[in-house]
């Protein structure tokens, strides 16, 4: 089939949305980040399961969880998950607004993306700063 001279070779046309050609608009960034943070949060559910199991296992079980999560790498992962949650939350609320028919104009969609990025970063940093300055642990 491939050698059939009757069939012209398919021309290699660029595929939409031309990821490698166009400068990325901010709306494209937030769209793919919503997906990426969703995948990260799915993996984060494994940490939630481990946390609950470690609590049910008594002091030794909890200490091993705490030792891993309190390490620099553990804290980095926790910060990543926290930001993923604030981003996916803000971006998800924006998705629900779209479902109700709001925020589709060029100006609004750009502004919405910028707001989602700003709020998610401020939210995640605020949560970590709040805990680090000793304001967490109020359910003791």
């Amino acid at each position, binding site marked *: 089939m491939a050698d059939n001279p009757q069939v012209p070779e398919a021309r290699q046309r660029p595929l939409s949305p031309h990821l490698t050609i166009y400068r990325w608009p901010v709306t494209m960034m937030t769209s793919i980040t919503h*997906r990426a943070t*969703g*995948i990260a*949060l*799915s993996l984060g*559910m*494994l940490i*939630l*399961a481990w946390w*609950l*199991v*470690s*609590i*049910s296992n*008594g*002091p030794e*079980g*909890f*200490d091993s969880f705490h030792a891993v999560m309190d390490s620099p790498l553990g804290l980095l992962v926790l910060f990543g998950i926290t930001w993923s*949650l604030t981003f996916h*939350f803000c971006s*998800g*609320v924006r*998705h*629900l607004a779209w*479902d109700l028919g709001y925020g589709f104009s060029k100006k609004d969609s750009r502004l919405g993306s910028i707001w989602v990025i700003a709020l998610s970063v401020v939210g995640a940093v605020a*949560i970590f700063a*709040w*805990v680090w300055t*000793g304001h*967490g*642990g*109020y*359910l*003791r």
Partner: protein
Amino acid sequence: MNTPLQRVQGLGAAHSGTGHFWRERVTAVALVPLSLWFLYVVIGLAGTTEVSALVFLAHPWNAILMAAFAVISLYHAALGLQVVIDDYVHSPGSKIFLLLLVRFAVIATGSTCIFALLRIAAQ
């Protein structure tokens, strides 16, 4: 040989209607208050011992809310991951493998969370 009516009732080439889309939205709406509550809990338990977490999660309302958060999050995750797989994985073999993996992993994680919560409640 379908009449237009039967084609509509047969749900077309996708074999499903808007069910997936709708379940994704319903779980998203439920997760808005639940994830705010979850943040309140993890910040409130940050830096405490396992006894604080144990006492907090042994309370029925907190256990129910945590179970709801875990189960609905995992359901929402399964729906979302399915879309990612549908979009990017095109060979039928790996597609079925990954779809099964997501479903099994979600059920295993959810059962583990609920079992741990029951064990906490029993202590």
